[in-house]
C-alpha cells in the first residue's frame, strides 16, 4: 500500500513516542519502592506547602477586561497583514479597514458607555 509506505516513518515515530514513556512509567512502577507518606501525598507546588483552595472566586471585572482585550488583540491580527500590504491594497484596502475599525470603535464606545472600562 503506497499510503502505508509513505507514512511508515510517521507511524513508527508515533509508536515509539507511545512506547517509550509507557515502558518507563511501567518499569518505574514495577521496580521502584513505594513508601507513601502524608508529606509525599501532598500536591506538588514548587516545593512549597500548599496554602488554601486553588478554586478561589475572583472579580467578574477581570472577565470583562479579558474580553475587551481579546477583541483588540484580534483587531491587531487583522491590521498587521494589512499594514504589510498597504501599498498593494491601496485605497480599497484602506476603506475596508476603516469600516472594520469604525465598527470596532462603535463597540468600544458601547462598552465605555455601559461602564465596562470603569474598575470600581
Amino acid at each position, binding site marked *: 500500500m503506497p499510503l502505508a509506505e509513505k507514512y511508515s516513518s510517521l507511524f513508527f515515530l508515533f509508536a515509539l513516542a507511545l512506547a517509550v514513556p509507557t515502558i518507563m512509567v511501567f518499569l518505574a512502577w514495577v521496580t521502584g519502592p513505594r513508601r507513601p507518606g502524608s508529606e509525599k501525598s501532598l500536591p506538588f507546588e514548587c516545593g512549597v506547602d500548599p496554602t488554601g483552595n486553588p478554586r478561589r472566586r475572583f472579580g467578574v471585572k477581570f472577565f470583562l477586561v479579558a474580553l475587551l482585550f481579546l477583541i483588540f488583540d484580534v483587531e491587531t491580527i487583522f491590521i498587521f497583514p494589512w499594514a504589510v500590504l498597504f501599498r498593494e491594497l491601496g485605497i480599497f484596502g484602506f476603506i475596508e479597514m476603516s469600516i472594520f475599525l469604525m465598527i470596532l470603535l*462603535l463597540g468600544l464606545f*458601547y462598552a465605555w*458607555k455601559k461602564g465596562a472600562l470603569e474598575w470600581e
Partner: protein
Amino acid sequence: MPAFTIDVVYQLMPLVVLLVGGLGFMLAGAMTRSAGPLQRGFALATLFVTLLYVFKLWGADAGPILHGMLIMDRFALFFLVVVIICALGTILISNGYLDRFGLNRGEFFSMVFFSTMGMGVLVSAYDLISVFLGIELMSLAIYVLVAFRRRDFFSNEAALKYFIMGAFAIAFYLFGVSLIYGLCGSTNFEAIAVAVSERNLAQQPVFLLAIGLIIGAMGFKVSSVPFHMWTPDVYQGAPTPITSFMATAVKAASFAAFLRLFYTCFMASKDQWVGIIIVLAILTMTIGNLVALVQRNLKRMLAYSSIAHAGYIMVGLVALSVDDTKAASAIMYYTLVYAFMTMGAFAVVSLLERRADERGLEGGDYAGLGLRRPFVGLCMAVFMFSLAGIPPTAGFFGKYYMFSAAVDQGYVTLAVIGVLNSAVSLYYYLRVVVSMYMQKSDEAAPTYDDYATRFVTLVALLAVLWLGIGPSGWVPGVETILDWTRASLAGVLELSSR
C-alpha cells in the same frame, strides 16, 4: 480591485442596511435607558427598507460576488424575504412582551438585526467559509437574545445550553469543511461541485465522513432528531418573541444553506448520502411527534412540533433531484408557510405568558380561550389546524407538495411514514383546540392584549389561509409563489451545471 464595483455594493445593500440598523440600535442601547415606540418604529422601518432593496434586486439573477463568497440570486432573495418577515413578526410580537417583562432595551433590536444579517449571509453563501460566517453571526446574536431575560434561571440555562452545544456543532461543521477542502482543493461551491462530479469522490470514505459531519452540524441548526436535545429547553427558556424567531427564521435560513449546499455541490453523489437523510427524516418526524404527544407545556409542545416539521422538510431533501425541482420548490414553499403558522402560534403564546417567575402555559392557561378571546382563539385554532395539515390551510398544501415530490421520486414508504406522522400530530394539535373551546375557562389565568401582537396573528391567519388556496392576483397566491421558487431553483441549477 475589479471585484469590488458599485454594482457589488448595490447587491450587498440589504445586508448593509441590516448592519447599519444593528449598529444604530447598539448605540441607541448605550444612550437610552429603554426603547420607546420611536425605536420600535425605526426597527420596523429599517426592515422595510431592507425589504425594498430585496425587491429591487429581484429578477436580475446576478452571479457570485466578492470572489465567489456570496451570491445574491433569487434563491437567496426568496429566503431573505422569509427571514425579514420573521424578523418583522418578532419585533411586532415583542411590542407588548418586552414592556411586560421589563426587557425593553435597544440592544434587543440590535441583536435581532445582527442575527438577521447573519441569516442574510447564510442564505446567500456560495462558499463553505461564508456559510460558517453566516451561521456564527446568526447564532451568536441568538445566544444573547435567548439569555435576554437575564434574571430568569431558565433563560440563562437555555442560553448556556444552546451556546455550548452550538459551539460543538460548528466544530463538527468545520471539521467536515476541512476534509472537503482536502478532497476538493477549494471551499467554493462551484469548485466543489466540479470536483465531486469529475473526480468520483463519492467512492472515498473520507468524503462520506465529511458529508456526515456537515449533516450533523446542519441537523443541529434545524433541530433534526439525534441533534435535537437542546430544542425544547431552549425554546421554553427563551423569551417568546425570540422563540418565534428561532423556530421560523433560524430554521428557514439553515434549511436554505442546507438546500443550496446539497443541491449545488453534492448531487453527483446523492446515492451515498441519501440514506443518512432518510434515517434522519424518519427519526425526526416520529420522535418529534411522539414526544409532543405527552407535553403539557404549550411552548415545549410547539418545540417538539417544530422538530417534527423539520422532519417533514427533510423528506423534501431526500427527494431532491436535478431533473425535477419539485422537491426543492416544496421545501421553499413549506418554509414560508411554516414561518407564518409558527409565528402566529407563538404570537398567541406570548399573549398568554405570565411573568417569568411563574411557569405559565400549562393546560389551564388556555382553557376557554376561544370563548374569552374569540379572535385570538380563532387564530390559534387555525394555526393548529394548519400545523396539523388539515385542508384548506396552507399547512396541508405544504405537506401535499412535499410528500407528492417524495412519491414522484419513488420514496413511497417515506411519504407514507410522513402521512402517518401527520395523523399522530393531529392529537396534540387538536387537544389545544378542544381545550380552548370545550373546557371551562380558568378565570385566574390572565391574557394580555397588545395591538401589534394581534396584528401579527391577523396577518399570519390571512397568510395561512391565502397561501393555501389564494388565487394569484394583486397579492401573490400559491401559483405565483411556486413560480418564484421554480425560477430561483432554475437559477441555482443553471449555476451548478455550468
